């Protein structure tokens, strides 16, 4: 049997199913649709409503403008009515609501003179939590420029005795405002993080990676079904691991290519060569894992039960939606190594070790299965 012909015919077989083609097209299409939902400046984590009272002074207006133009992960949206904003908060359309008092200048003057604030900014929340604390800090951060400016003005007048007008102070302050980035995020491998990043796409790579794992386990279903039908009767009794790899690759190569296209379409790709290399390792790891599952489960029904179990374990214990450490489970999941290894070579090495160990287990199970054939 010509292995190339064998491989190509297995791939041809998959493409004879319209639903398989539909699935391959659906994945990048859905990614594009999702990406289409992202805004030009990136999707924001949560929406925060902002309302400014009527007859607001210049400081209040400045604060409002600062918030609305902020490049924060939390989007500030203006409301024209306080009641409407509160209702929106109650309907869970926004995460928090802020009311800027009309006489905000007074609040600023009070704080720089260490006096009690009579009319502070009101923040309405529904539930306590770290996100609320973070948002409060972000709001404070929007006020920093005005605080610093007012403090400087007060210092000049009262300490230095320099009578500087508000407008001159503002002009000088803005002219001296450094346009620098003091902090920068980097990955473990030294590459700098993307500046623009869309929150909506955060779990996308992980979800696609789990989908690929499901495809691999589904290939096991196909294999068992074909074996039960006797398709491998005229091949060796199962010793040739190479043949099995070829069989699984017939499923994994089209799906992996779809994965690459989807990742490319989502702009999550880091570097083409690294992506392809990592993906290749991941696919090999998945194939080995799926074969182990096949040999342990043996029947279509049992493999079918394992699929959703692996799905939920991968979604929780691999860094798809969150990073959870639970060694025994993490280390059994190729998805964990793959996602962690996107920017960290230690996990790439981990994946290689995983492949070697899993391959040894697979080979052992195959040999055991060989001895057992007919008796299981």
């Amino acid at each position, binding site marked *: 049997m010509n292995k190339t012909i064998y491989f190509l*015919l297995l791939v041809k077989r998959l493409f*004879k199913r319209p639903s398989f083609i539909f699935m391959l097209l659906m994945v990048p299409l859905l990614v594009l649709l999702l990406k289409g939902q992202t805004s030009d400046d990136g999707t924001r984590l949560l929406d925060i409503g902002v309302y400014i009272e009527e007859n607001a002074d210049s400081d209040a207006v400045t604060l409002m403008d600062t918030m609305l133009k902020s490049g924060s992960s939390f989007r500030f949206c203006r409301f024209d009515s306080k009641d409407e904003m509160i209702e929106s908060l109650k309907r869970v359309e926004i995460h928090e609501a802020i009311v800027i008092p009309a006489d905000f200048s007074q609040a600023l003057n009070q704080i720089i003179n260490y006096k009690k604030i009579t009319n502070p900014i009101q923040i309405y929340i529904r539930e306590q939590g770290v996100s609320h604390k973070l948002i409060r800090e972000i709001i404070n951060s929007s006020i920093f420029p005005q605080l610093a400016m007012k403090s400087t003005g007060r210092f000049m007048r009262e300490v230095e005795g320099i009578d500087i007008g508000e407008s001159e102070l503002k002009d000088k302050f803005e002219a001296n405002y450094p346009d620098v980035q003091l902090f920068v995020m980097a990955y473990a491998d030294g590459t700098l993080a993307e500046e623009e990043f869309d929150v909506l796409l955060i779990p996308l790579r992980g979800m696609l990676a789990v989908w690929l794992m499901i495809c691999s386990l589904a290939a096991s279903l196909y294999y068992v079904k074909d074996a039960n039908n006797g398709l491998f009767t005229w091949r060796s009794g199962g010793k040739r691991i190479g043949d099995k790899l070829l069989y699984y690759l017939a499923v994994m190569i089209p799906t992996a290519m779809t994965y690459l296209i989807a990742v490319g379409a989502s702009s999550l790709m880091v570097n083409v060569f690294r992506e392809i290399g990592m993906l290749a390792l991941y696919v090999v790891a998945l194939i080995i894992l799926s074969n182990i599952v096949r040999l342990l489960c043996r029947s279509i029904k049992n493999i079918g039960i394992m699929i959703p179990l692996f799905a939920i374990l991968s979604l929780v214990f691999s860094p798809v939606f969150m990073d959870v450490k639970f060694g025994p489970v993490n280390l059994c999941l190729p998805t964990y190594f793959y996602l962690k290894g996107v920017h960290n070579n230690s996990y790439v090495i981990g994946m290689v070790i995983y492949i070697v160990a899993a391959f040894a287990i697979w080979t052992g199970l195959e040999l055991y299965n060989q001895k057992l054939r007919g008796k299981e």
Partner: protein
Amino acid sequence: MQFDISNINMTYKKKKVLTDVSLSFGQGESIGILGENGTGKSTLLSILSGQFLPDSGSFMMDGTDLIKNEKLRQNVVAFVPQGTPLIEELTARDNLRLWYSKDSMLASLDSGFLGMLGINSFIDVPVHKMSGGMKKRLAIGCAIHANPKVLLLDEPTASLDILCKERIYTYFDYFKKSGGTILLVTHDEREISLMDRCFILKNTKFYPYSYDGNMMQLANNLRNE
């Protein structure tokens, strides 16, 4: 070429299935294996084809144990199981291409075994659209890709029409004349009558049986022996 099956024993889930099954045959023979359902006939064929490993015993060809020598066995023994060992989505041509090179397939279709099986008439039909007879002929066609010396068949003509059966029997005849040996599990009277020799598998043991055309007597033997 001489084939000797010696003392095949097989246990499945602590239950004895085959006890000291032995049989010798040469080239150009046809042997029928009879027995009630569940007596281990398919198991025996699976052992001879290498799908199962017996507890003990050998299957020798001129002094070489085919059970241990996988590579040789694949070239010598072909097995056509009961199911449909084909890829449903592909055509007959594609299924044959899994096993044949292009040239050998074309040659065989033209004037060889595949042509004799009549596969030309449905060469581009997908398997899921084929009738049972077509599928069985195609399965046989795939099985013989390595020009085997021994053909093991598990109820090959079950649920096929008469014309289809006759076609397959013509092929069996041709195969025998070419020096091949057929081991056939069957319940069909016509097939039994075509066999050179018959054996009954009963109570895990293998007994020779001479069929004289009397089905009632055969049935009694299956029950009582």
